[in-house]
């Protein structure tokens, strides 16, 4: 029996074995490069103050305390966390509510002037007006110092829209046609037929939007005046700069506190990612293909 099995095994050449060993070593190295900074953030966030001074705290933990987390959870940074969560949560919902119907509409071959609309949409991928025109627009709309200034201008990402549109184009038209024969209008077809078939792309794009709203920094600084409305990213950067004390006036905040705020900043995405992970790759692959 064992002889039979052995005869079925493809004999690997020495070169292939070397190649495989090299692959494993290389990917392990890449894995370390990715994991070490996250590991460093985690172990620094639970270290004692004295252990993190001098910039030598890298891989091996020297102490363990949750003092930094206790500090951060009872600090003003939590307000930034909730602000970020509001903007990322509401922003993602608004963005999906606009992107999905728009992607569906653009996926319809029968849409009048479809090519024109697509060209107009694609144009925004190439040209970015920059912060000043956006500031003037936000100011004209009366949205300065309003959290919606961080949501409405970014409600549609062209990249995400094209992914959604391409995915929906890959759904056979016969499904929608059958639905319309059964009395569905376009909206009903989208809700009852297309969306259930688009879960992978919806999961991927939801994550993209969430991360994009969660990490928004420059616009938050430029459009928000009242520090009570600042997002966590703004407060985190403020913390890092303030403690740098380059003007000789800042507070001295140790690395462990900074890293605890960073962990707080990573938390929502780390929580959401496992739930959408299984759809993530397939969604991207399908949405990225233009038929």
């Amino acid at each position, binding site marked *: 029996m064992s002889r039979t099995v052995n005869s079925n095994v493809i004999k690997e050449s020495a070169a292939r074995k070397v190649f495989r060993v090299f692959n494993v070593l290389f990917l392990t190295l890449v894995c370390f490069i990715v994991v070490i900074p996250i590991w460093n953030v985690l172990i620094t966030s639970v270290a004692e*103050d*004295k252990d993190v*001074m*001098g*910039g*030598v705290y890298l891989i091996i933990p020297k102490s363990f305390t949750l003092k930094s987390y206790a*500090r*951060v959870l*009872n*600090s*003003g*940074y939590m*307000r930034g966390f909730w602000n970020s969560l509001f903007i990322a949560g509401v922003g993602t919902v608004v963005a999906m509510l606009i992107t999905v119907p728009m992607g569906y509409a653009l996926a319809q071959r029968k849409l009048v002037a479809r090519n024109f609309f697509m060209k107009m949409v694609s144009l925004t991928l190439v040209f970015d007006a920059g*912060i*000043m025109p956006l*500031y*003037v627009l936000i*100011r004209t709309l009366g949205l*300065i110092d309003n959290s919606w200034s961080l949501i409405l201008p970014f409600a549609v990402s062209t990249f995400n829209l094209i992914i959604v549109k391409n995915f929906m184009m890959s759904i056979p038209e016969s499904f929608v046609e059958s639905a319309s024969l059964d009395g569905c209008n376009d909206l009903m077809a989208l809700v009852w037929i297309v969306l259930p078939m688009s879960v992978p792309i919806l999961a991927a794009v939801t994550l993209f939007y969430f991360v994009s709203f969660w990490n928004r920094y*420059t616009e938050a*600084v*430029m459009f928000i*005046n*009242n*520090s*009570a409305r*600042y997002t966590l990213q*703004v*407060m985190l*950067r*403020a*913390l*890092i*700069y*303030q*403690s*740098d*004390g*380059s*003007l*000789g*006036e*800042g*507070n*001295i*905040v140790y690395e462990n*506190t900074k890293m605890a705020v960073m962990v707080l900043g990573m938390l929502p995405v780390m929580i959401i990612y496992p739930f959408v992970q299984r759809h993530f790759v397939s969604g991207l692959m399908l949405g990225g293909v233009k038929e």
Partner: protein
Amino acid sequence: MKKLVALVLVAIMALSIVPVVSADEVVTLTICSADNTFGLSTDPDLQQAVVDMLEEKCGVQLEAIIPPIGSYNDKLETMMAGGDVPDIFSISQAMTRLPNYVAREQPLKLNDLIASSPALSAIDESFYNALEIGGSIYAIPYYYPRVKCIFLRKDIMQQYDIQLSETPTTEEFITELSKLKGTGVIPFSFPKWIDNFQFFLNSFGAYAGIYKNTEGKFVDGMQEPQMVDALNYLRELYTSGVMDQEFITTENATMREYVYTGKAACDIDYVANYSNYVSQSEAAGKYSDVQPIYMLVGPDGKGGGLNESIQTAWCISSECKNPEAALRVIEALVTDPATHAAFYNTGVEGVHYTIVDGVAVATEKATNSGYAIKYNYITDAFISDFSGLPYQPTEEMKAALELQRTIIDKGMELRGPKQMIPAGKSDLYDENSASITSYWKEVISQIVLGSVTVEEGLNNYKNFWNSVDGDTILAELNQ
């Protein structure tokens, strides 16, 4: 029906008057300053407590804009370009930025307003003059000019027999610190900010950038003969191993931590930071006093500390509807002991700190946001007497601050030159000043790191200078 319409119209007109009447009663002003002010905390609740205190003190309604310090200039300039200039705003790197703002007519000329305020008029005229543009004053400074020196750990001096005075020669500096080679201690930790090299250029009478020479003519410091010796010395500092070999990526915070923890023997920092070295080395479990080195004496007896002059100051917008009220706010910030201390360092009693036996103790909420009681205002401010405040530093801190005051005075006495180029005199300079500064920094860092020789670096600079028509810039400035 007509009566009803008339009645409604009258009611609307009457209502429209109400806000006008109340607007006359309380002046509303916008105030913009980075988050290293407003009580030195990034917690919005704590910042608001300082705003409330300021409103009460000055009798105005304030809308505070408190961007993170790292993005402050971008925010301010975006607001200016978008037509939202705050009524009161602070500026950083005043010697570089103020001329640009004045050229764009953003700040109000303050000569008459300052003259109307006895408290602001009492400030030493030379501090106003440092920021004077075309005979006019557009900014009100609130602390002494910033000067940097080298802080050297005394325990390392003793352990390795390093004999350096407070004003050693350039050669002594290299020779003595070379004793640390092979000990694992970084002899001299230096930050990535290339401007700091001016400390060493001063020892050779060299100046990076355009400056007015002793004959009163504007010249380009990078092309003056003394620059060659100065750059050779900088290169030697690096090749001899005295300067941290990784300085090009070192942040200020890291540089300081190296000295606090004894990983490095010395660094370059503001004279007003002396007390931090004492307290933070103790916090790191590596307590040591530090010795200031105010300047290195060069071969020709020249030298001077790094003079950053007045870097931050207050301006009033040229569009401000009520400059007198705005001045009241600035006057309180600059000259009133309680307001100054609260705004720049300590915050508000009951919110940032409570007083226990005459000593301010940070509240738990404030501590959680990284706030700590700091007494820098005692040595930094123009205000001479803070004894009326209900809290005072501990005796140890008082002693350290007294010493710090002496160090600041000595640093001021031995500070090197700092020049401000007038705005609006040469359009070509106004257009190219940022790129000139950026290029000389690049060339100096390349020379120090050895990517190019001194000769090659200066040749590259000369080519750049010609490409921006530098000689025309000098001719226009000298007109």
